[in-house]
């Protein structure tokens, strides 16, 4: 990605958060994406989410594959380590990194090409493994960086800029994630920051693989009439199933929702996610019910959004593995090396 350092002008009146940082401190270098690209709005939402969660930048690890979407880790939290890996393989890097240091906050950014074509296998296995990370798929229905070919998320009947019609069945990442046992599944829209920010915050607090599919239009190759991933089409057809409110650990819970339409779910770190049903019969804890509901809405041409499914309890990769609580990178060598006496003992058995 091109590299343009942003002027770091201080805005004295900008409010600072609990760790003394302003929202500007969570920005990265200047974006080189096309003006109006949906991915930049996702970046802005991430900046806001990190700021509001009072996260120390250096405790974040940002990862991506290859694509326009995968460039975005350069554009937020510049004081976090970033890893722009190879096309479709970010989940493996994230799993290995998390195995080594479970204490950092992992954010993976991918595209629909990156996650649903070349990297489909790794995406699926990261879900199965329940790697503790926030995984954002910036979904525009095309390969932006290679100039607009259909991706695997392109809907049947959608047209490309050059007028070809897609006839192949799309892969719906939300459906896929649900079927693979993902414990946090959301869909949002880059143009709806109010919805996206609390979802991202909840995803960061989630212990396990938090998957957020963000419809993020490609203004250059897939924002025309006839596209089902354009700004206009998404706005017209999205329908919020559930409203999300994120209450961090320290915050006082003021409103008392007595009407039963709100469900408060306590996360691993003690923070609370509140889900308000917009649709009466919707239950975000009922996996098969959610799948049925989504398939119904999809057949009506609607794009259901919100934190669609959440299961806060459960083991992540380390839970399955039985790894120590301390990050493996912090264990001193003396603890790791069995030493010469143990070697002698072992070799007595090799005779």
């Amino acid at each position, binding site marked *: 990605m091109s590299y343009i350092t942003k002027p770091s002008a201080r805005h004295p009146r900008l409010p600072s958060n609990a760790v003394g940082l302003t929202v500007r401190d969570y920005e990265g270098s200047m974006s080189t994406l096309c003006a109006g690209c949906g991915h930049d709005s996702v970046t802005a939402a991430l900046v806001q989410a990190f700021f509001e969660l009072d996260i120390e930048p250096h405790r974040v690890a940002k990862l991506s594959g290859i694509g326009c979407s995968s460039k975005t880790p350069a554009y937020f939290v510049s*004081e976090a380590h970033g*890893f722009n890996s190879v096309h479709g393989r970010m989940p493996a890097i994230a799993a290995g*990194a998390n195995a080594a240091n479970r204490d950092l906050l992992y954010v993976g950014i991918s595209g629909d090409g990156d996650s649903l074509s070349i990297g489909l296998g790794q995406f699926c296995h990261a879900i199965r493994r329940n790697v503790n990370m926030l995984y954002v798929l910036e979904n525009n229905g095309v390969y932006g960086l290679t100039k607009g070919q259909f991706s695997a998320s392109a809907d049947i009947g959608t047209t490309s800029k050059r007028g070809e019609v897609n006839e192949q069945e799309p892969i719906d990442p939300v459906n896929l994630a649900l079927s693979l046992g993902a414990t946090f599944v959301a869909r949002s829209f880059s143009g709806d920051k109010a919805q996206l920010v609390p979802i991202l915050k909840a995803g960061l607090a989630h212990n396990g693989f938090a998957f957020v599919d963000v419809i993020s239009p490609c203004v250059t190759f897939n924002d025309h009439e006839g596209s089902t991933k354009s700004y206009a089409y998404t706005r017209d057809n999205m329908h919020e199933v559930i409203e999300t409110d994120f209450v961090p650990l320290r915050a006082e819970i003021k409103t008392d929702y007595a009407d039963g339409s709100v469900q408060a779910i306590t996360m691993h770190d003690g923070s609370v996610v509140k889900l308000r049903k917009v649709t009466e019969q919707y239950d975000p804890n009922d996996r098969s019910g959610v799948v049925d509901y989504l398939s119904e809405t999809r057949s009506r041409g609607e794009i259901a959004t919100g934190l669609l499914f959440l299961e806060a309890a459960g083991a992540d*990769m380390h839970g399955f593995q039985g*790894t120590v609580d301390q990050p493996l*990178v912090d264990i001193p060598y003396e603890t790791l*090396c*069995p030493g*010469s006496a143990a070697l002698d003992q*072992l070799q007595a058995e090799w005779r």
Partner: protein
Amino acid sequence: MAHDSSHGVNDFGLKIATVNGTGSASANGLLLQALFRMGVPVSGKNVFPSNIQGLPTWYEIRVNADGYTARSPDFQLVVAMNPESYARDIEEVVSGGWILYDSSRELSEEFKRDDVTFIGVPFADLCVTRFDGSRTRILMKNITYVGALVALLDIDMDVVKGMLQEKFATKQHLMEANFIAIELGRDYVLEHFDCPLPIRLETVDATKDSVMVTGNAAAALGCVYAGATVGAWYPITPATSVMDGFTEYCNRFRIDPETGKKNFCIIQAEDELAAAGMVIGASWMGARAFTPTAGPGISLMTEFIGLAYYAEVPSVFFDIQRAGPSTGMPTRTQQGDLLLCVYASHGDTKHIVLFPGDPKECFEFAVAAFDLAERFQTPTFVVSDLDIGMNDWMIPKLEWDDDFVPDRGKVLSAEELEQAERFYRYLDVDGDHVAARTLPGVHGKGAYFTRGSGHDKYGRYTEDSDEYVEVMDRLLKKVESAADAVPAPELHTVEGGSRLGLISIGGCHWAVLEARDQLLRDGVQVDYLRVRGFPFSSAVERFIDEHDVVVVVEQNRDEQLRKLLLLETNCVKQKLESITDYGGQPLSKGVVLEGLAPYLEALAVEVS
């Protein structure tokens, strides 16, 4: 079918032909270990099919008082337990040798040879009379041939019994069954034949400082001692037992005593691409991480290997080579991945590669690989093979220095970063071509973007030619500077020097050494160098310079080591000759001697 009468006490070859999946592996292991415990140098080579049950399988044991453990295709005794492979097995006994077979079924005339002695023991019938259940009978049949060999070869019965007692300490009924089976075979042979044979064993004291272990187990243990905490892999023969070993030793040595939790993380990945990515991710965080695989896995990993090279992420890869190309012969050995590993990935790449020659070096080089990877911040390969990795080798006891401190390379601490004005990831400040790195989570000032796309020395994205070239040139110098840090070549020279030199690599060593010893005894002076690491130390080029003819002995068709020497040294092309052996069996001295013959004549090497 060479006639061979030179063998005898503590010096012979034995081949056991069975059917895989019948439990013969444990009988053969028992036998090998018994000989080893009698103090006699031995080696065992398992020749097995890529199959779980029902196909022919062989186990070759070489007993050699002088300690030569290379494969030898001269078998004085063949234990023919598999009628399917009788024709071939009986054919393989040297003239004057012996064939021990199951006489429960009469041996067909076509197999008879009059230059060998047939020893028929009704193993199946004996087992039917003593054991119930078909599975037990099949398993015990294997133990009865061990019993027959106890009598024929004069194996110390106390040693065998002691081993069974250890093995079945908690399974009394199994121990008794095994005792019965051993005695069944032994007593029948004692009663019906003259025992022992002229080829036989005598207790000596030549193995007390040795252990028996496979290269994969030793490599796995090396990873534990190196402090590796993350292992990622996808199952593949012949590399699987590396991770089996790592798991076993970690469960033994790495469980936190207070919590019972694991001080390690082993991930069975969805494929080798993912395994490589996991290693790189863990290494990026500062863990010591590795993946064991074979050629097909390295092929899949190459994109990631290029990333680790260019982004300078330390990472350790074990390639336990098997016969390629493609799926090839998964259960046969080869050295066909030398060039693949040295230049893995697209674009200009070159890697540090270590070539262990036996399990002892698998252990030592595993430890060294992590140090080299971190010191030079680059992918590092340990290239072993099926023969070293999966067969039991007799090696000198492993040693460990408790003062060992791992070389973690240049990694900046939080304090150093706090004091630094700025940090630039790829800036070589002291001229050793290695730039300091930082680990995620340590300090905001250390943050940078790890990427496989073009970057300048400050770590910033670039598409500028000069900035790109500057980094690429440093990377080349960096890896080349490892030439003196990789294990030095092993040299065997004659006084006054010879005009003829031999170069070999990996497990070829033992056959080459044995062949050379024979030549020396015959008065033929030959120098020998074994390559143990890449980039080549300057000693390799010097060795070639100092000889008129250098014959490179290796186990692949395409003379990969010879070509690598031509590419990576300034040697004269015409000097380098080649002996290749790539049928999938471990090298034996005969191949070397035969291959060398024309050069000996041409050079008219002095024969005293």
